[in-house]
C-alpha cells in the first residue's frame, strides 16, 4: 500500500472524470435511445430505415473502433476547417472527453433504442384507450400514461446499459482522457508496480458499478410502490 502514497489524489481526480463522463453520456444515451425508439415506432419509412441502420451498425462494431473513428475523424475535419482560416495550424482535435463521451453514448444508445422500443410496445393498450376515453390529448397520453408505464418496463435492461456506460469509460483512456486508467499508466512509469496500480483502477470501477446497481435497485423499488399487489 506504500507505493500508493501520493497517488490517491490523482486517482480521485481520475474517478471524478469517470463520474463526469458517466453523467454526460447518460443524458446523451437516453436522448439517442428515445430518438431511435421513436423513429422505429413511427410510421415514416425513412425514419424506420435510419433507426434500423443505426442499431445494426453500432451494435455490430467494436466500441474502440467507434471511439477512434470519432476522435481522429472529427480531428481531421476540424483541422481542415481550421487550415482554411490559418494555414499554420497543424492539428485541431475535439477534446477526448467529448469525443469519447459522444462515442459511448451513441453505442449504448443503440442498445437503449431496442430497450425503449420494447418498453413502449409493452405499455398496456387498455391504459391508452382509458386515457383517450378521458379526453387526453396525444401529448398528455404520452406524458401521463406512456412514459410512467414505459420506464418501469425499461428499467432492468436500462440498468445494464448504465453499467456498460461506466465500463466503456475505461476505453476513452485510449484516446488520452485523463481518467483512472491514464493515472495508473503514469503511476506505473514512476513506481513500476503495474498490478497494484491497475487493481486500484479495477476497484474504482467496481465501486462505480456497485453504486449504479444500488441506484437502479432503489429506483426499481420506487417504481413498484404503486404497483405492488396489482399483479
Amino acid at each position, binding site marked *: 500500500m506504500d507505493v500508493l502514497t501520493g497517488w490517491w489524489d490523482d486517482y480521485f481526480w481520475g474517478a471524478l472524470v469517470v463520474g463526469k463522463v458517466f453523467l454526460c453520456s447518460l443524458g446523451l444515451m437516453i436522448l439517442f435511445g428515445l430518438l431511435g425508439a421513436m423513429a422505429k415506432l413511427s410510421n415514416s419509412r425513412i425514419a424506420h430505415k435510419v433507426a434500423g441502420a443505426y442499431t445494426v451498425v453500432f451494435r455490430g462494431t467494436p466500441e474502440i473502433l467507434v471511439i477512434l473513428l470519432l476522435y*481522429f475523424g472529427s480531428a481531421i475535419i476540424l483541422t481542415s476547417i481550421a487550415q482554411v482560416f490559418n494555414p499554420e495550424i497543424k492539428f485541431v482535435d475535439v477534446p477526448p472527453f467529448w469525443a469519447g463521451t459522444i462515442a459511448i453514448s451513441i453505442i449504448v444508445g443503440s442498445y437503449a433504442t431496442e430497450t425503449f422500443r420494447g418498453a413502449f410496445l409493452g405499455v398496456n393498450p387498455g391504459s391508452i384507450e382509458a386515457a383517450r376515453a378521458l379526453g387526453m390529448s396525444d401529448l398528455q397520453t404520452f406524458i401521463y400514461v406512456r412514459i410512467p408505464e414505459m420506464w418501469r418496463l425499461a428499467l432492468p435492461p436500462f440498468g445494464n446499459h448504465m453499467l456498460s456506460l461506466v465500463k466503456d469509460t475505461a476505453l476513452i483512456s485510449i484516446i488520452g482522457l485523463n481518467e483512472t486508467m491514464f493515472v495508473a499508466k503514469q503511476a506505473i512509469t514512476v513506481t513500476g508496480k503495474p*498490478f497494484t496500480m*491497475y487493481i486500484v483502477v*479495477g476497484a474504482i*470501477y467496481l465501486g462505480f458499478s456497485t453504486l449504479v446497481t444500488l441506484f437502479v435497485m432503489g429506483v426499481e423499488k420506487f417504481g413498484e410502490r404503486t404497483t405492488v399487489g396489482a399483479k
Partner: protein
Amino acid sequence: MSFDLQLIAESLPMMLMGIGITLKLLVISGILGLLLAICLLLMRISGRWYFNVPAQIYIYVFRGTPILVQIFIVYYGLPQFEAVRDSVFWPILREPTGCAILALSLNTGAYVSEILRGGVLGVDKGVLEAGSALGMSAHQKFIYITAPIATRLALPAYSNDVISLLKSTALASTITIADMTGIARTIVADTYAPYEIFISLAIIYMIFTFGLQKLFGVIERYLSRYTKREG
C-alpha cells in the same frame, strides 16, 4: 477531405490478414469461457455456500470492471510478481496473445454463467417433477432434463454474448496484438486516413456479427426442432 478508395483497396488485404488472430481469440476464449461458465454455474446452483459465494464474488467482480482493465491487469500487472515469472504458466503469460485469451475467457465466463443460470431457472418445474416421478436421480434429471432445456432457453442471450466477445477481441490491439483492429490502427498511424480504414474495418466486423447471428439462428432452429411452433 476525400474518400480514398485506392487506399481501402490496398489496406483491406492487410487488415484481413489479422482475421486469423481475431478468430483465434474469439474461438479459444469462447470455448474456455464457456467451460469456466459451466463450472461457475454448477457452483452457483450447488446449494452449498462455500461453492456459491466464491462464484458470486467472481461474477460480481468480473462483471463490474471494464474488460480493458482486466486485460491490462493480466498483461502488465501479473509479471510484477516473481512467482508468476517463475511459474509454468510464464510461457503463456509472456505472450500478449496468451494474456488476451486468458483475460477474455475470464471475462466472458462471468457473463455466460449468468446467462446459463437464467436458462436453468427458466426450466419448467413440471418436467422436473415428471422426472422425479419416473424415478430419476438428481444427476440424471440435470443431465437429461435441465441441461438440454436450459441450453435452448439460454441460446438467444448466449449469441449476444458471443457477439460482444467478438467486439471485445478488438481490445487485444491495446496490448500490441496485430488483430484486425491492431493492423488498422497501424495503417491509420502511417497514412492518417481514419475514415477509410476504420469504416471499412467496421464493415468487416458487421459482416462477422451478421454471420454469427445467422449461425446461432441455425443452431437455435436445430435445437428447437421438437418444440411446438408458436403463432
